[in-house]
């Protein structure tokens, strides 16, 4: 009996040891080389001009396979210890923080968001799932530089909305019934950040991203800016070192499990990675799941990144920020950048990374 148990434990520990996890440092694996690596570097790191700001301007590229660093390179001002602005990757990070609260049993996906954020009283039928799908139905305008007068996101971050971004969002009229139509909205993401305040309670809220997510993953230098109400700017303002963002990717690649702890419930991750049914082909550069972007065929259109496996998913941000996860290849890729001209292509980078690491 005891002998059987001993053998069982030995077997378990061998399985655990066979899986690489970062401790304080990441384990390092065999570095790729050859012409495929040259092709990757030629794409990601062309000569950089900080005056014209033209072309592809990668700040950091980190490739992790099976929990080990295969490749990393930094450029411009960015170093291994720079907490780089993630822009809209923050949205996927907030979803991950919410996933921990979901695992605590503190809310359900079909809960009306107004239950946790009373300022939504004008829109009582928007559910948590609708916000996670960017399907609130609120009449939001997500343009950055090109339409500054009409841009809801510019007004939210810098002018009329910056003191209380969730209230600014909740004040929008609706253009569609909640849950029916996709419209990418930084406002929806900040409403999620506001609901979290009630979900976990105001005393836990200011430290919750750290206690719930960053510390269990060994992330020590995360920054997450708030508005004047103390609500996290979930749409835009989380900062992580490249190797720390990769920890989030590894957590997602392994179905919400960190070591032996199931930090995110499996059904939460499954929700994140399920395409939103109301999405119409080519509405955005990839297919929305629950605050994550999926490389899945949708509404008759093929996968948005044809050279990457269909299980590829990503957190994406303005000016070329990206966290790509390819579970079938055991790959996590962090790409920070400062692309100002929109020339960067996810598919091209993924194709060249896959070419460089495939045996």
């Amino acid at each position, binding site marked *: 009996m005891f002998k059987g148990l001993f053998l069982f434990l030995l077997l378990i520990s061998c399985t655990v040891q066979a899986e690489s996890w970062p401790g304080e440092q990441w384990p390092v694996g065999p570095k790729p080389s050859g012409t495929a690596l040259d092709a990757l570097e030629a794409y990601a790191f062309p000569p950089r001009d900080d005056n014209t*700001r033209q072309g592809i301007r990668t700040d950091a590229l980190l490739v992790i396979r099976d929990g080990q660093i295969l490749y990393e390179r930094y450029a411009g001002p960015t170093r291994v210890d720079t907490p*780089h602005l993630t822009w809209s990757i923050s949205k996927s990070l907030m979803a991950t923080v919410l996933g921990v609260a979901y695992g605590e049993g503190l809310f359900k996906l079909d809960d009306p968001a107004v239950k946790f954020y009373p300022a939504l009283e004008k829109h009582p039928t928007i559910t948590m799932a609708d916000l996670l799908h960017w399907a609130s139905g609120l009449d939001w305008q997500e343009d950055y530089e090109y339409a500054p*007068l*009409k841009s809801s996101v*510019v007004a939210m971050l810098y*002018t009329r909305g*910056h003191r209380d971004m969730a209230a600014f969002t909740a004040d929008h009229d609706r253009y569609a019934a909640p849950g029916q139509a996709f419209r990418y909205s930084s406002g929806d993401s900040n409403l999620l950040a506001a609901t979290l305040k009630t979900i976990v309670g105001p005393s836990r809220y200011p430290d919750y991203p750290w206690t719930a997510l960053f510390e269990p993953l060994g992330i020590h230098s995360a920054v*997450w800016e708030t*508005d004047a109400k103390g609500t996290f700017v979930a749409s835009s303002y989380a*900062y992580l070192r490249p190797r720390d963002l990769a920890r989030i990717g590894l957590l997602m690649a392994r179905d919400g499990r960190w070591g032996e702890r199931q930090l995110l419930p499996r059904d939460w991750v499954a929700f994140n990675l399920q395409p939103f049914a109301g999405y119409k082909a080519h509405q955005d550069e990839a297919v929305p799941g629950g605050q994550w972007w999926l490389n899945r065929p949708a509404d008759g259109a093929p996968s948005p990144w044809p050279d990457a496996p269909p299980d590829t998913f990503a957190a994406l941000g303005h000016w070329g920020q990206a966290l790509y996860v390819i579970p079938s290849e055991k790959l996590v890729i962090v790409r920070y950048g400062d692309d100002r001209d929109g020339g960067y292509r996810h598919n091209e980078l993924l194709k060249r990374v896959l070419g460089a690491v495939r045996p």
Partner: protein
Amino acid sequence: MKLFKRILLVLLLVLLGWIWHEREALWAFPDIISAYTAKEYCSCRYVMNNDADYCRGYVKQWLPTSGFTDDAVSKTVTVSGMGRSNSAGWTGEHQGCRLQP
């Protein structure tokens, strides 16, 4: 000529109507450049810890700014442009920079 004047009057009324309709957005518009520059410079400098010269280039946009002060002791950045002035300040290790007030 009479018709021309009438068309001009209608156009003027449409313009005034549009200005009234968009008054909030129009009033807020001149704040964008100084608020953007102050906030993103503050974060570039004090959250990402990049050097000052790099951050000045990083926040540059097509609209010009005039005044620029960066108080390294209080970590407060104040920028003027289009007749408005905005400040952003560093508030702590976890919460980075924020527009003031």
